[in-house]
């Protein structure tokens, strides 16, 4: 099967919540080369793009839906946006759910937009990630 517009609205929740730790925040800040003290110390917030790391767990579920017929090696990240209600911080326990919002076809390429909602396990909104992917089905 292949992804199409009838699959808009499908939702995928990450298996289990993500516990945000200060050591991982520091490791991530080091990896992106950002020395901002806000990401270090005893009570750090996470750098903005860390939201994608947490959201990726929901993306895994989406890519695992056999009915979409998506292959990781045919996927390109086209665009990415984040909206924050508040920063992610060490100690947060975060649930992620990705929902397909649009599917367009341009020849063999499917352009897929999905939104990932990050909330605490109690349902407090933290951030929304809006992602655009291109999936190239040529030669399949």
């Amino acid at each position, binding site marked *: 099967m292949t992804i199409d517009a009838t699959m808009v609205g499908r939702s995928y929740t990450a298996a289990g919540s993500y516990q945000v730790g200060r050591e*991982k925040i520091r*490791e*991530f800040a*080091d*990896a*992106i*080369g*950002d020395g*901002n003290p*806000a*990401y270090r110390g005893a009570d750090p*917030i996470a*750098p*903005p*793009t860390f939201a*994608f*790391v947490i959201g*990726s767990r929901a993306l895994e579920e989406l890519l695992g839906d056999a009915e979409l017929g998506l292959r*990781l*090696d045919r996927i*390109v*990240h*086209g*665009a*990415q*946006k*984040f*909206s*924050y209600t*508040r*920063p992610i911080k060490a100690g947060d326990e975060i649930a992620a759910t990705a929902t397909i919002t649009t599917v367009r076809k341009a020849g063999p*390429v499917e352009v897929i937009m999905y939104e990932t909602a990050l909330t605490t396990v109690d349902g407090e909104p933290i951030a929304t990630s*809006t992602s655009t992917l*291109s999936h*190239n089905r*040529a030669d399949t």
Partner: protein
Amino acid sequence: MSLAGTELPPLTVTFKRDDLVRYAGASGDFNSIHWSDRMAAALGLPGVIAHGMLTMASAVRVVTDWLDDPADLVEYGVRFTNMIPVPDDDQGATSRIDGEEIFSSDAWVGHWGPRKCDEQKANSPAISRLSGQLVAVPTPPAHG
């Protein structure tokens, strides 16, 4: 006092192979196109390329470095238009991210595209909260 027209300082970033390895570990993105020349070539890429999200993290620094507190960032987006190949040498790949009028920043960010790699810069609108006020994003200026 209006902040419109304030220029954000530009940023120059260099990625070397070990930076991509470090980012793969920190982010959990172990896609082999970001560390294996063999796998990158098999997919038609010019070589190992930087993770798009790593380049986005660099681009957003133009804004968060300028903000007193990165917690004031409310919204940030990019489009990925160019690849950033990272050679396996001591020089790596250097990119310049221009600081534009508040709050827009232009960034060279990378991804591999299906058969096309245009020269267009990605526009990265940002919205930030300053002193409790939401400061809206003007349309980023076009680039020639």
